């Protein structure tokens, strides 16, 4: 796996505040990498540092093989950024906005009008191309800002809360597009969000950040394994067991946690090999088992567990 972004002990302070505090991670080519964290975690600051828009107070970064602090201009030619606010020129038309940024990104003049047309078409803005952006809805602005970020076909995309404030349909359009950019076109996507279901849906790997520090990083599986060890199975019953069965399970070696609901047990085990023993113990107590299924904790559970563990 080729790292597209390599960051080591990256730090940026604003006065006494450490917005980014000794962060180390890598992002690989072609993946969707999610940076999660509450407001003020340092996500936007990280994006700025990685694009050479802000200078780091300490640490190192290499993005697409370039040091952002040393050669931000060359780097930014090859990155596309969807900023937190669309920051479009509202007094100009959609087409003027794209033409302007296309020129700034160095798209050849002969190519530019055609590419702008294609983008407008693709983002379903062609009919409104000559309208001033000030009259656009939030979703249209977001689509136009995305079009702007993609215009120069950058191999690396930074998307800072791409679906914030969009209605479910518009949000869905955007997430579908992100999947397509990554899976079909092979672009690397660096996604900042606090929308956990969305991150779960989109991201190959996530990092959780809070108050400038990186709390955890990995795939969902890696994270849940490191949080709880082993994995979880859900046992569904046809009818509530006549006797409490949970306590017997707790006595089994390699069972680390049991949560009980009337018709379901959630059992955490250290390895797959323990599952037959669990089923056996339940059957022995007369439980009528309907289904045993592995359970992957949601990103939301993982996220809150990580945040909980990070509490002092």
């Amino acid at each position, binding site marked *: 796996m080729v790292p597209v972004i390599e960051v080591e002990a990256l730090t940026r302070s604003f006065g006494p505040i450490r917005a980014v505090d000794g962060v180390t991670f890598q992002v690989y080519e072609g993946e969707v990498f999610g940076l999660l964290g509450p407001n003020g975690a340092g996500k936007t600051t990280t994006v700025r540092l990685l694009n050479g828009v*802000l200078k780091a107070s300490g640490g190192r970064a290499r993005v697409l093989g370039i040091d952002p602090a040393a050669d931000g201009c060359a780097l930014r030619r090859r990155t596309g950024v969807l900023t*937190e606010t669309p920051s479009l020129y509202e*007094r100009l038309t959609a087409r003027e906005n794209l033409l302007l*940024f296309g020129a700034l990104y160095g798209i050849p003049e002969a190519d530019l009008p055609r590419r702008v047309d294609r983008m407008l078409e693709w983002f379903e803005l062609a009919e409104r191309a000559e309208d001033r952006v000030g009259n656009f809805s939030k979703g249209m602005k977001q689509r136009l800002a995305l079009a702007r970020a993609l215009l120069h076909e950058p191999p690396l995309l930074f998307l800072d809360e791409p679906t914030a404030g969009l209605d479910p349909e518009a949000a869905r359009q955007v997430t579908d597009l992100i999947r397509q950019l990554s899976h079909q076109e092979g672009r690397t996507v660096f996604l900042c969000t606090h929308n956990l279901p969305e991150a779960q849906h989109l991201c190959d790997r996530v990092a959780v950040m809070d108050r400038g520090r990186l709390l955890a990083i990995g795939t969902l599986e890696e994270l849940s394994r490191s949080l709880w060890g082993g994995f979880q199975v859900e046992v569904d019953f046809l009818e509530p067991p006549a006797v409490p069965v949970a306590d017997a399970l707790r006595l089994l070696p390699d069972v680390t946690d049991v949560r009980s609901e009337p018709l379901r047990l959630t059992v955490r085990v250290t390895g797959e090999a323990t599952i037959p023993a669990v089923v056996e113990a339940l059957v022995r107590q007369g439980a009528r088992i309907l289904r045993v299924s592995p359970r992957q904790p949601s990103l939301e559970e993982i996220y809150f567990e990580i945040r909980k563990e990070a509490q002092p």
Partner: protein
Amino acid sequence: MNGRTLLTIAVKDLKEVRQNRAAWIPALVVPLVVVVLLPVGLILIPGLFRATTISMTPLSADSGPIGMMRERVPALDRALVGLDEYQTWVVLMTGYLLAPFLLIFPLMFSTIVASESFVGEKERKTLEALVYTPASDGELFLGKALAAFVPAVLLTWTSFLVYGVAVNAAGWRVMGRIWFPPASWWPLMLWVAPAFAALGVAVTVLISTRVRTFMEAYQISGSLVLLVLMLVLGQVTGVLYLSAGMALSVGLALWLVDALLLYFGIRTFRREALLVGG
């Protein structure tokens, strides 16, 4: 420095200014009055008085304000030699006293555009996308500065042309020849006017780190017009006569101030500072 980048930024800024009618329409109308109505009025009014036989002798008399001025400023005296009363009036008013008024243009225009492009852009929060482009800090600065400077100078020269036509045409019956512009106008237009345009840009850039809105910036930098009014006053009272030589020195002083202010302005104009605001 990439020419296309500079041009793109400059054109973008001007397109944005174009939408702010409340700012540029007065800036166009007021000068139009100065350039056409004022000189034509000044030339024609004495004609009306003459018809009612009011004497114009104070104009050429050795005593009175104009006599004193001629005495104090020999160059002016030489320019007025051999002219009759009415001609003296025309040349004195439109050829000398009104001249510094035209310097309001480069200042007004450059401060309007610079306020829009340096402060208005911050106010509208569109910088965020701009700083993520490959354009360098220098290109961003220069593009914006050119958007304010070049049109201001071109508009000044256009108004100079219009003024010249108006003055020569309205004064034709009195003067009987094309007499405008006197030599002192050339350094004023080619040397001092661009220096005023640059001053408008430089001052706006400097205050842009401290103000939040276009209006604030425009009001502060717009007060530079006082400088021009001081020149007018100096001219009218005879304290400062804008001869060619004097114009050259005033221009030089302005350019030096410009250079100094721009030097500090460029230093504050970094991506980092634009975003962080400090």
